[in-house]
């Protein structure tokens, strides 16, 4: 009852029209933090969430690379199995994540995420440049002047870029947020 009253007060505060955007955002974080305390599910830490997202990105990257480079080798059956395996891994992760409550991000997490995102953007541009260069070199070697792209390749390229971005971003975050030596209580 006391907690419900607290939530009611917080939500009433949120409805006030004269609040600034920053105040509203801070209040939402406070509400989220209160809800997190009351949630009976086991928590998944920020590092745990980043690890799951890293695995998700890695699965997307590997799948896209295989589909772009080894499509003929795998055949339609192989591609189907690959898609099913990656989908199963992703569904398992979503199921696992849903079973737990997510630890809210604090200011240090947001700072690290911003740094990781900027690094991921640089890697993304590098991957795009390398891919473009590879396509041009291969086509020139084969004497092909036109670049033909089908919808599958477009989808796989988009998937690869998203996978690379997620892998680098969350990998960089885990590196930045590594535990300092001699953690004390």
């Amino acid at each position, binding site marked *: 009852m006391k907690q419900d009253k607290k939530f009611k007060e917080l939500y009433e505060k949120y409805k006030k029209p004269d609040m600034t955007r920053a105040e509203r955002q801070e209040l939402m974080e406070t509400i989220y933090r209160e809800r997190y305390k009351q949630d009976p599910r086991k928590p998944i830490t920020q590092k745990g969430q980043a690890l799951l997202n890293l695995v998700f990105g890695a699965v997307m990257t590997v799948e896209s690379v295989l589909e772009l480079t080894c499509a003929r080798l795998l055949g339609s059956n192989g591609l189907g199995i690959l898609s099913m395996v990656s989908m199963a891994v992703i569904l398992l992760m979503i199921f696992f994540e849903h079973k737990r409550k997510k630890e809210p991000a604090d200011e*240090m997490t947001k700072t690290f995420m911003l740094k990781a995102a900027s690094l991921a953007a640089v890697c993304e541009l590098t991957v795009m440049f390398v891919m473009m260069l590879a396509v041009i070199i291969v086509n020139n070697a084969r004497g092909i002047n036109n670049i033909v792209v089908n919808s599958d390749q477009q989808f796989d390229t988009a998937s690869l870029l998203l996978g690379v971005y997620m892998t680098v971003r969350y990998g960089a975050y885990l590196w930045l947020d590594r535990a300092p030596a001699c953690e004390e209580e």
Partner: protein
Amino acid sequence: MPELKTRLKEYRAAQNMKQGDLAELVGVRRETIIRLEKGQYNPSLKLAMDIAKVFGATVEEIFSFED
């Protein structure tokens, strides 16, 4: 370049408070408090003020810049 020094650990020990308890009071993770105490992270003004409020001290008493 001056470095941020903190007396956070002293204040916390004086009140027999764990890092996790302090983290919960100011709304951050325990890892943030660990890094603050080690001087590996510069807090925002709001966080510094919240921490000072918990200990009943001023921001300058807990955080200082030293060469």
